[in-house]
Protein backbone atom coordinates (compact mmCIF):
# COMPACT_ATOMS: atom_id res chain seq x y z
CA UNK A 1 0.00 0.00 0.00
CA UNK A 2 1.00 3.56 -0.46
CA UNK A 3 2.79 4.43 2.74
CA UNK A 4 1.14 7.82 3.22
CA UNK A 5 -2.32 6.35 2.86
CA UNK A 6 -1.49 3.48 5.19
CA UNK A 7 -0.02 5.73 7.83
CA UNK A 8 -2.87 8.18 7.45
CA UNK A 9 -5.42 5.46 8.03
CA UNK A 10 -3.57 4.03 11.02
CA UNK A 11 -2.91 7.37 12.69
CA UNK A 12 -6.36 8.68 11.85
CA UNK A 13 -8.08 5.68 13.36
CA UNK A 14 -6.13 5.92 16.60
CA UNK A 15 -6.66 9.66 16.78
CA UNK A 16 -10.38 9.15 16.31
CA UNK A 17 -10.48 6.75 19.23
CA UNK A 18 -8.59 9.21 21.39
CA UNK A 19 -10.86 12.11 20.47
CA UNK A 20 -14.03 10.14 21.00
CA UNK A 21 -12.86 9.10 24.44
CA UNK A 22 -11.59 12.58 25.27
CA UNK A 23 -14.85 14.30 24.51
CA UNK A 24 -17.12 11.42 25.40
CA UNK A 25 -15.75 11.00 28.90
CA UNK A 26 -16.41 14.65 29.63
CA UNK A 27 -20.06 14.50 28.69
CA UNK A 28 -22.00 14.16 31.92
CA UNK A 29 -23.43 10.70 32.32
CA UNK A 30 -21.34 9.09 29.59
CA UNK A 31 -18.50 8.03 31.85
CA UNK A 32 -20.04 4.64 32.67
CA UNK A 33 -20.19 3.92 28.96
CA UNK A 34 -16.46 4.46 28.60
CA UNK A 35 -15.49 3.07 31.97
CA UNK A 36 -17.80 0.08 32.31
CA UNK A 37 -19.73 -0.79 29.20
CA UNK A 38 -16.88 -0.45 26.72
CA UNK A 39 -14.37 -2.59 28.64
CA UNK A 40 -16.94 -5.30 29.23
CA UNK A 41 -18.04 -5.31 25.61
CA UNK A 42 -14.46 -5.32 24.39
CA UNK A 43 -13.54 -8.18 26.68
CA UNK A 44 -16.47 -10.29 25.59
CA UNK A 45 -15.78 -9.58 21.91
CA UNK A 46 -12.14 -10.42 22.41
CA UNK A 47 -12.69 -13.76 24.09
CA UNK A 48 -15.66 -14.67 21.93
CA UNK A 49 -13.96 -13.58 18.74
CA UNK A 50 -10.73 -15.35 19.60
CA UNK A 51 -12.54 -18.60 20.33
CA UNK A 52 -14.62 -18.21 17.18
CA UNK A 53 -11.55 -17.76 15.02
CA UNK A 54 -9.72 -20.71 16.53
CA UNK A 55 -12.80 -22.91 16.18
CA UNK A 56 -13.14 -21.82 12.56
CA UNK A 57 -9.58 -22.95 11.93
CA UNK A 58 -10.23 -26.13 13.83
CA UNK A 59 -13.17 -26.97 11.61
CA UNK A 60 -10.80 -27.55 8.73
CA UNK A 61 -8.87 -30.76 9.23
CA UNK A 62 -5.14 -31.29 8.86
CA UNK A 63 -5.28 -33.83 6.05
CA UNK A 64 -1.56 -34.34 5.76
CA UNK A 65 1.28 -34.24 8.21
CA UNK A 66 3.59 -31.70 6.66
CA UNK A 67 5.95 -30.24 9.26
CA UNK A 68 8.99 -28.37 8.03
CA UNK A 69 11.85 -30.60 9.11
CA UNK A 70 14.71 -28.35 10.10
CA UNK A 71 16.92 -31.06 11.55
CA UNK A 72 17.94 -34.68 11.22
CA UNK A 73 15.03 -37.15 11.13
CA UNK A 74 14.74 -40.15 13.38
CA UNK A 75 16.42 -42.87 11.39
CA UNK A 76 19.20 -45.38 11.97
CA UNK A 77 20.06 -45.76 15.65
CA UNK A 78 23.60 -44.46 15.25
CA UNK A 79 22.56 -41.23 13.59
CA UNK A 80 21.69 -38.54 16.09
CA UNK A 81 18.21 -37.20 15.64
CA UNK A 82 17.50 -33.52 16.09
CA UNK A 83 14.57 -33.97 18.43
CA UNK A 84 13.70 -30.31 18.54
CA UNK A 85 13.84 -29.35 14.89
CA UNK A 86 12.56 -32.66 13.60
CA UNK A 87 10.54 -34.13 16.43
CA UNK A 88 9.20 -37.66 16.36
CA UNK A 89 7.30 -37.56 19.64
CA UNK A 90 4.70 -35.37 21.30
CA UNK A 91 7.33 -34.25 23.78
CA UNK A 92 9.55 -33.16 20.92
CA UNK A 93 6.69 -31.23 19.34
CA UNK A 94 5.95 -29.55 22.66
CA UNK A 95 9.61 -28.62 22.88
CA UNK A 96 9.64 -27.24 19.37
CA UNK A 97 6.48 -25.23 19.98
CA UNK A 98 7.78 -24.04 23.34
CA UNK A 99 10.88 -22.53 21.81
CA UNK A 100 8.84 -21.16 18.95
CA UNK A 101 6.25 -19.50 21.16
CA UNK A 102 8.44 -18.36 24.02
CA UNK A 103 11.70 -17.60 22.26
CA UNK A 104 10.72 -17.05 18.61
CA UNK A 105 13.28 -19.62 17.56
CA UNK A 106 12.58 -19.38 13.84
CA UNK A 107 12.88 -15.64 13.87
CA UNK A 108 16.20 -16.06 15.65
CA UNK A 109 17.51 -17.77 12.52
CA UNK A 110 16.92 -14.62 10.52
CA UNK A 111 19.71 -13.65 8.15
CA UNK A 112 20.06 -10.69 5.91
CA UNK A 113 20.99 -11.22 2.30
CA UNK A 114 22.80 -8.50 0.42
CA UNK A 115 24.40 -8.28 -2.97
CA UNK A 116 28.05 -7.29 -3.04
CA UNK A 117 30.30 -7.54 -6.11
CA UNK A 118 28.14 -10.16 -7.72
CA UNK A 119 27.95 -12.31 -4.61
CA UNK A 120 25.15 -12.75 -2.14
CA UNK A 121 26.38 -12.13 1.37
CA UNK A 122 24.35 -13.56 4.23
CA UNK A 123 24.81 -12.04 7.64
CA UNK A 124 23.02 -12.98 10.82
CA UNK A 125 20.58 -10.30 11.82
CA UNK A 126 18.99 -10.51 15.23
CA UNK A 127 17.34 -7.12 15.32
CA UNK A 128 13.89 -8.22 14.28
CA UNK A 129 14.11 -11.10 16.72
CA UNK A 130 15.24 -8.84 19.55
CA UNK A 131 12.64 -6.22 18.74
CA UNK A 132 9.83 -8.73 18.55
CA UNK A 133 10.87 -10.53 21.73
CA UNK A 134 11.29 -7.26 23.60
CA UNK A 135 7.91 -6.05 22.52
CA UNK A 136 6.04 -9.24 23.33
CA UNK A 137 7.62 -9.79 26.73
CA UNK A 138 7.28 -6.16 27.76
CA UNK A 139 3.65 -6.30 26.77
CA UNK A 140 3.10 -9.55 28.64
CA UNK A 141 4.71 -8.23 31.82
CA UNK A 142 2.70 -5.04 31.58
CA UNK A 143 -0.51 -7.03 31.22
CA UNK A 144 0.32 -9.23 34.20
CA UNK A 145 1.34 -6.20 36.23
CA UNK A 146 -2.04 -4.67 35.57
CA UNK A 147 -3.59 -7.48 37.57
CA UNK A 148 -2.72 -5.42 40.64
CA UNK A 149 -5.55 -3.16 39.61
CA UNK A 150 -8.02 -5.97 39.20
CA UNK A 151 -7.40 -8.14 42.23
CA UNK A 152 -7.81 -7.92 45.98
CA UNK A 153 -5.67 -9.17 47.57
CA UNK A 154 -2.92 -8.79 45.00
CA UNK A 155 -1.27 -12.15 44.29
CA UNK A 156 2.37 -12.51 45.21
CA UNK A 157 3.61 -13.08 41.66
CA UNK A 158 2.06 -9.80 40.55
CA UNK A 159 3.73 -7.95 43.40
CA UNK A 160 7.01 -9.68 42.68
CA UNK A 161 6.86 -8.81 39.00
CA UNK A 162 6.04 -5.25 39.94
CA UNK A 163 9.07 -4.98 42.18
CA UNK A 164 11.28 -6.56 39.56
CA UNK A 165 10.02 -4.27 36.84
CA UNK A 166 10.62 -1.22 39.02
CA UNK A 167 14.03 -2.41 40.15
CA UNK A 168 15.75 0.74 38.93
CA UNK A 169 13.86 2.80 41.53
CA UNK A 170 14.08 5.86 39.40
CA UNK A 171 11.62 8.68 40.07
CA UNK A 172 8.35 8.70 41.91
CA UNK A 173 6.27 6.71 41.22
CA UNK A 174 9.03 4.29 40.33
CA UNK A 175 9.79 3.88 36.66
CA UNK A 176 8.85 0.55 35.11
CA UNK A 177 11.48 -0.89 32.79
CA UNK A 178 8.87 -2.48 30.58
CA UNK A 179 7.17 0.87 29.97
CA UNK A 180 10.31 2.14 28.34
CA UNK A 181 11.18 -1.11 26.59
CA UNK A 182 7.70 -1.43 25.13
CA UNK A 183 7.86 1.98 23.55
CA UNK A 184 11.41 1.44 22.33
CA UNK A 185 10.50 -1.90 20.77
CA UNK A 186 7.38 -0.49 19.17
CA UNK A 187 9.30 2.46 17.83
CA UNK A 188 11.84 0.08 16.32
CA UNK A 189 9.18 -2.09 14.71
CA UNK A 190 7.45 1.00 13.39
CA UNK A 191 10.56 2.67 12.02
CA UNK A 192 11.68 -0.63 10.49
CA UNK A 193 8.46 -0.78 8.52
CA UNK A 194 8.94 2.74 7.31
CA UNK A 195 12.66 2.80 6.70
CA UNK A 196 13.33 -0.59 5.08
CA UNK A 197 12.11 -0.33 1.49
CA UNK A 198 10.99 -3.97 1.31
CA UNK A 199 9.03 -3.59 4.51
CA UNK A 200 7.43 -0.39 3.37
CA UNK A 201 6.39 -2.10 0.18
CA UNK A 202 4.65 -5.02 1.84
CA UNK A 203 3.10 -3.12 4.75
CA UNK A 204 -0.64 -2.55 4.93
CA UNK A 205 -2.64 -0.15 7.12
CA UNK A 206 -3.34 -3.24 9.20
CA UNK A 207 0.38 -3.41 9.96
CA UNK A 208 0.75 0.17 11.13
CA UNK A 209 -2.51 0.40 13.03
CA UNK A 210 -1.73 -2.05 15.85
CA UNK A 211 1.73 -0.55 16.29
CA UNK A 212 0.32 2.96 16.62
CA UNK A 213 -2.53 1.76 18.78
CA UNK A 214 -0.33 -0.13 21.23
CA UNK A 215 2.15 2.72 21.25
CA UNK A 216 -0.63 5.10 22.28
CA UNK A 217 -1.81 2.65 24.92
CA UNK A 218 1.69 2.63 26.35
CA UNK A 219 2.04 6.37 26.04
CA UNK A 220 -1.27 7.15 27.78
CA UNK A 221 -0.36 4.67 30.49
CA UNK A 222 2.93 6.40 31.05
CA UNK A 223 1.32 9.83 30.97
CA UNK A 224 -1.19 8.68 33.56
CA UNK A 225 1.45 7.30 35.86
CA UNK A 226 4.12 9.91 35.64
CA UNK A 227 2.68 13.13 34.26
CA UNK A 228 -1.08 13.62 34.25
CA UNK A 229 -1.72 11.56 37.31
CA UNK A 230 -5.05 10.07 38.22
CA UNK A 231 -6.21 8.91 41.60
CA UNK A 232 -5.15 5.32 41.62
CA UNK A 233 -7.53 4.37 44.40
CA UNK A 234 -10.56 5.49 42.40
CA UNK A 235 -9.18 3.74 39.35
CA UNK A 236 -8.79 0.54 41.25
CA UNK A 237 -12.26 0.92 42.64
CA UNK A 238 -13.49 0.94 39.04
CA UNK A 239 -11.30 -1.91 37.84
CA UNK A 240 -11.97 -4.17 40.80
CA UNK A 241 -15.63 -3.40 40.32
CA UNK A 242 -15.31 -4.68 36.77
CA UNK A 243 -13.49 -7.81 37.80
CA UNK A 244 -15.83 -8.65 40.68
CA UNK A 245 -18.83 -8.07 38.41
CA UNK A 246 -20.04 -5.30 40.71
CA UNK A 247 -19.15 -2.37 38.49
CA UNK A 248 -19.06 1.05 40.08
CA UNK A 249 -18.19 4.39 38.58
CA UNK A 250 -16.17 6.44 41.07
CA UNK A 251 -16.05 10.17 40.60
CA UNK A 252 -13.07 12.26 39.81
CA UNK A 253 -11.03 10.01 37.52
CA UNK A 254 -9.06 12.05 35.01
CA UNK A 255 -10.01 11.93 31.33
CA UNK A 256 -6.64 10.44 30.40
CA UNK A 257 -7.77 7.24 32.05
CA UNK A 258 -10.77 7.01 29.74
CA UNK A 259 -8.59 7.54 26.72
CA UNK A 260 -6.33 4.74 27.92
CA UNK A 261 -9.28 2.43 28.48
CA UNK A 262 -10.82 3.27 25.10
CA UNK A 263 -7.55 2.45 23.35
CA UNK A 264 -7.17 -0.83 25.21
CA UNK A 265 -10.78 -1.72 24.46
CA UNK A 266 -10.20 -0.95 20.79
CA UNK A 267 -7.24 -3.30 20.78
CA UNK A 268 -9.35 -6.03 22.34
CA UNK A 269 -12.12 -5.54 19.82
CA UNK A 270 -9.73 -5.34 16.87
CA UNK A 271 -7.68 -8.35 17.91
CA UNK A 272 -9.83 -11.28 16.79
CA UNK A 273 -10.44 -9.79 13.37
CA UNK A 274 -6.88 -9.03 12.52
CA UNK A 275 -3.44 -10.43 11.96
CA UNK A 276 -2.98 -10.24 15.72
CA UNK A 277 -4.64 -13.65 15.74
CA UNK A 278 -1.19 -15.02 15.01
CA UNK A 279 -1.16 -15.40 18.79
CA UNK A 280 -3.60 -18.27 18.46
CA UNK A 281 -2.60 -19.29 14.97
CA UNK A 282 0.97 -20.16 15.80
CA UNK A 283 -0.31 -23.06 17.88
CA UNK A 284 -2.35 -24.35 14.96
CA UNK A 285 0.34 -24.09 12.31
CA UNK A 286 0.85 -27.55 10.83
CA UNK A 287 4.29 -26.46 9.64
CA UNK A 288 5.46 -26.58 13.23
CA UNK A 289 3.06 -28.45 15.48
CA UNK A 290 3.37 -31.93 14.00
CA UNK A 291 5.85 -34.71 14.53
CA UNK A 292 7.73 -36.00 11.50
CA UNK A 293 6.44 -39.55 11.91
CA UNK A 294 4.58 -40.08 8.66
CA UNK A 295 6.45 -43.24 7.80
CA UNK A 296 6.21 -44.63 11.29
CA UNK A 297 2.57 -43.93 12.10
CA UNK A 298 -0.16 -43.49 9.56
CA UNK A 299 -1.77 -40.08 9.59
CA UNK A 300 -5.47 -40.20 8.75
CA UNK A 301 -7.09 -37.78 6.34
CA UNK A 302 -10.79 -37.52 7.18
CA UNK A 303 -11.77 -36.63 3.62
CA UNK A 304 -9.58 -39.17 1.91
CA UNK A 305 -11.44 -40.84 -0.96
CA UNK A 306 -10.59 -43.54 -3.45
CA UNK A 307 -9.28 -42.33 -6.79
CA UNK A 308 -9.05 -43.88 -10.18
CA UNK A 309 -5.60 -45.42 -10.47
CA UNK A 310 -4.62 -46.70 -13.91
CA UNK A 311 -4.49 -50.41 -13.17
CA UNK A 312 -1.76 -52.85 -14.02
CA UNK A 313 -4.26 -54.80 -16.06
CA UNK A 314 -4.98 -51.84 -18.32
CA UNK A 315 -1.30 -51.15 -18.53
CA UNK A 316 -0.53 -54.69 -19.60
CA UNK A 317 -3.35 -54.59 -22.12
CA UNK A 318 -1.72 -51.53 -23.66
CA UNK A 319 1.73 -53.02 -23.89
CA UNK A 320 1.44 -56.82 -23.71
CA UNK A 321 3.07 -57.68 -27.01
CA UNK A 322 5.89 -55.24 -26.52
CA UNK A 323 6.52 -56.53 -23.02
CA UNK A 324 6.62 -60.10 -24.24
CA UNK A 325 9.01 -59.19 -27.01
CA UNK A 326 11.30 -57.51 -24.51
CA UNK A 327 11.22 -60.48 -22.19
CA UNK A 328 9.27 -58.77 -19.45
CA UNK A 329 6.92 -61.20 -17.70
CA UNK A 330 3.19 -60.65 -18.19
CA UNK A 331 0.12 -61.85 -16.28
CA UNK A 332 -1.85 -63.04 -19.30
CA UNK A 333 -0.04 -64.47 -22.31
Amino acid at each position, binding site marked *: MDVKVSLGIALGAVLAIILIAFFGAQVPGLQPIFGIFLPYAAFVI*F*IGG*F*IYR*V*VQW*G*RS*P*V*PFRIPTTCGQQKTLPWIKQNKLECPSSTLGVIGRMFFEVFFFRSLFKHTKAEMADGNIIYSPSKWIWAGALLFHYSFLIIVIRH*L*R*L*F*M*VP*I*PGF*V*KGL*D*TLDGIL*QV*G*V*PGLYLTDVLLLVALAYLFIRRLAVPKMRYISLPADYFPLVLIFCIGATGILMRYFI*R*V*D*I*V*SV*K*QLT*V*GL*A*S*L*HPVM*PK*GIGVIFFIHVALVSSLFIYFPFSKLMHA*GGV*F*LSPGRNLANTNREKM*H*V*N*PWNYPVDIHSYEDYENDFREKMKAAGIPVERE
Partner: protein
Amino acid sequence: MYDAGKIIIGLVIFVVFLTFAFWMDAGKAVPPPKPKLNTPVIMKMPKAERKCVESKEFMRTEHMQLLDTWRNEALREGNTEYINTNGKMYIVSLQNTCMKCHSNKKDFCDKCHDYAGVKPYCWRCHFVKGQMKNWE
Protein backbone atom coordinates in the same frame (compact mmCIF):
# COMPACT_ATOMS: atom_id res chain seq x y z
CA MET B 1 -7.18 -35.02 11.67
CA TYR B 2 -8.82 -32.32 13.68
CA ASP B 3 -7.10 -32.52 17.10
CA ALA B 4 -10.29 -31.10 18.58
CA GLY B 5 -9.30 -32.19 22.07
CA LYS B 6 -6.05 -30.31 21.96
CA ILE B 7 -7.69 -27.19 20.57
CA ILE B 8 -10.33 -27.23 23.29
CA ILE B 9 -7.73 -27.69 26.02
CA GLY B 10 -5.79 -24.78 24.55
CA LEU B 11 -8.86 -22.57 24.47
CA VAL B 12 -9.77 -23.47 28.03
CA ILE B 13 -6.29 -22.53 29.21
CA PHE B 14 -6.58 -19.31 27.24
CA VAL B 15 -9.93 -18.38 28.79
CA VAL B 16 -8.92 -19.34 32.32
CA PHE B 17 -5.75 -17.31 32.00
CA LEU B 18 -7.62 -14.27 30.73
CA THR B 19 -10.40 -14.45 33.27
CA PHE B 20 -8.06 -15.17 36.14
CA ALA B 21 -9.00 -11.93 37.88
CA PHE B 22 -12.70 -12.69 37.57
CA TRP B 23 -12.37 -16.07 39.25
CA MET B 24 -10.45 -14.57 42.12
CA ASP B 25 -12.72 -11.56 42.55
CA ALA B 26 -16.09 -12.89 41.49
CA GLY B 27 -18.86 -11.91 43.82
CA LYS B 28 -16.46 -10.34 46.27
CA ALA B 29 -17.66 -7.00 47.49
CA VAL B 30 -14.47 -5.07 47.81
CA PRO B 31 -15.03 -1.72 49.45
CA PRO B 32 -12.50 0.91 48.54
CA PRO B 33 -10.10 1.75 51.36
CA LYS B 34 -11.01 4.53 53.77
CA PRO B 35 -7.85 5.92 55.29
CA LYS B 36 -8.56 6.90 58.87
CA LEU B 37 -8.19 10.52 59.92
CA ASN B 38 -8.98 10.04 63.58
CA THR B 39 -5.54 10.30 65.13
CA PRO B 40 -5.36 12.13 68.49
CA VAL B 41 -3.52 15.05 66.91
CA ILE B 42 -6.14 15.53 64.22
CA MET B 43 -9.00 15.09 66.64
CA LYS B 44 -7.59 17.77 68.91
CA MET B 45 -7.64 20.30 66.04
CA PRO B 46 -10.63 22.49 65.54
CA LYS B 47 -12.63 21.30 62.57
CA ALA B 48 -11.80 24.30 60.45
CA GLU B 49 -8.08 23.74 60.82
CA ARG B 50 -8.12 20.11 59.83
CA LYS B 51 -6.31 20.66 56.58
CA CYS B 52 -3.35 18.96 54.95
CA VAL B 53 -0.47 20.92 53.43
CA GLU B 54 -2.34 21.01 50.14
CA SER B 55 -5.86 20.23 49.01
CA LYS B 56 -7.24 16.75 49.40
CA GLU B 57 -7.53 16.27 45.62
CA PHE B 58 -3.98 17.38 45.08
CA MET B 59 -2.67 15.14 47.84
CA ARG B 60 -4.51 12.14 46.44
CA THR B 61 -2.72 12.11 43.14
CA GLU B 62 0.43 14.14 43.84
CA HIS B 63 1.57 13.30 47.40
CA MET B 64 4.33 11.07 46.14
CA GLN B 65 5.72 13.85 44.00
CA LEU B 66 5.46 16.31 46.85
CA LEU B 67 7.29 13.97 49.19
CA ASP B 68 9.92 13.30 46.59
CA THR B 69 10.47 17.03 46.19
CA TRP B 70 10.52 17.46 49.93
CA ARG B 71 13.18 14.85 50.34
CA ASN B 72 15.40 16.40 47.70
CA GLU B 73 14.86 19.91 49.09
CA ALA B 74 15.54 19.00 52.67
CA LEU B 75 18.34 16.50 52.30
CA ARG B 76 20.15 17.81 49.26
CA GLU B 77 19.42 21.52 49.26
CA GLY B 78 19.01 21.99 53.00
CA ASN B 79 15.79 23.85 52.39
CA THR B 80 13.39 22.84 55.12
CA GLU B 81 10.57 25.30 54.51
CA TYR B 82 7.62 24.70 52.24
CA ILE B 83 5.15 27.41 51.33
CA ASN B 84 1.84 25.96 50.16
CA THR B 85 -0.53 27.38 47.57
CA ASN B 86 -2.29 29.40 50.24
CA GLY B 87 0.98 30.91 51.38
CA LYS B 88 1.16 28.93 54.56
CA MET B 89 4.56 27.66 55.66
CA TYR B 90 5.28 24.08 56.68
CA ILE B 91 8.44 22.42 57.89
CA VAL B 92 9.64 19.90 55.32
CA SER B 93 9.65 16.66 57.22
CA LEU B 94 7.88 13.38 56.69
CA GLN B 95 8.07 12.40 60.27
CA ASN B 96 7.58 15.69 62.00
CA THR B 97 5.06 17.28 59.69
CA CYS B 98 3.14 14.59 57.81
CA MET B 99 3.23 11.90 60.40
CA LYS B 100 2.63 14.27 63.24
CA CYS B 101 -0.99 14.27 62.18
CA HIS B 102 -1.00 10.96 60.28
CA SER B 103 0.65 9.01 63.01
CA ASN B 104 -1.45 5.99 62.04
CA LYS B 105 0.64 4.61 59.18
CA LYS B 106 -1.22 1.33 59.27
CA ASP B 107 -4.64 2.87 58.98
CA PHE B 108 -3.66 5.74 56.77
CA CYS B 109 -0.67 5.21 54.44
CA ASP B 110 -0.83 1.45 54.18
CA LYS B 111 -4.55 1.34 53.51
CA CYS B 112 -4.30 2.73 49.97
CA HIS B 113 -0.79 1.53 49.28
CA ASP B 114 -1.75 -2.06 49.98
CA TYR B 115 -4.95 -1.69 48.04
CA ALA B 116 -3.16 -0.42 44.96
CA GLY B 117 -0.19 -2.67 45.38
CA VAL B 118 2.26 0.16 45.85
CA LYS B 119 5.37 -0.28 47.91
CA PRO B 120 6.88 3.14 48.53
CA TYR B 121 10.39 3.05 49.81
CA CYS B 122 9.85 5.84 52.40
CA TRP B 123 10.13 3.38 55.23
CA ARG B 124 13.45 2.02 54.21
CA CYS B 125 14.92 5.06 55.95
CA HIS B 126 12.08 6.47 58.02
CA PHE B 127 10.47 4.61 60.79
CA VAL B 128 7.18 4.83 62.48
CA LYS B 129 6.96 5.67 66.12
CA GLY B 130 6.58 2.60 68.24
CA GLN B 131 7.74 0.32 65.43
CA MET B 132 11.39 0.77 66.13
CA LYS B 133 11.82 -2.89 66.85
CA ASN B 134 10.34 -4.01 63.59
CA TRP B 135 12.49 -1.62 61.78
CA GLU B 136 15.64 -2.95 63.37
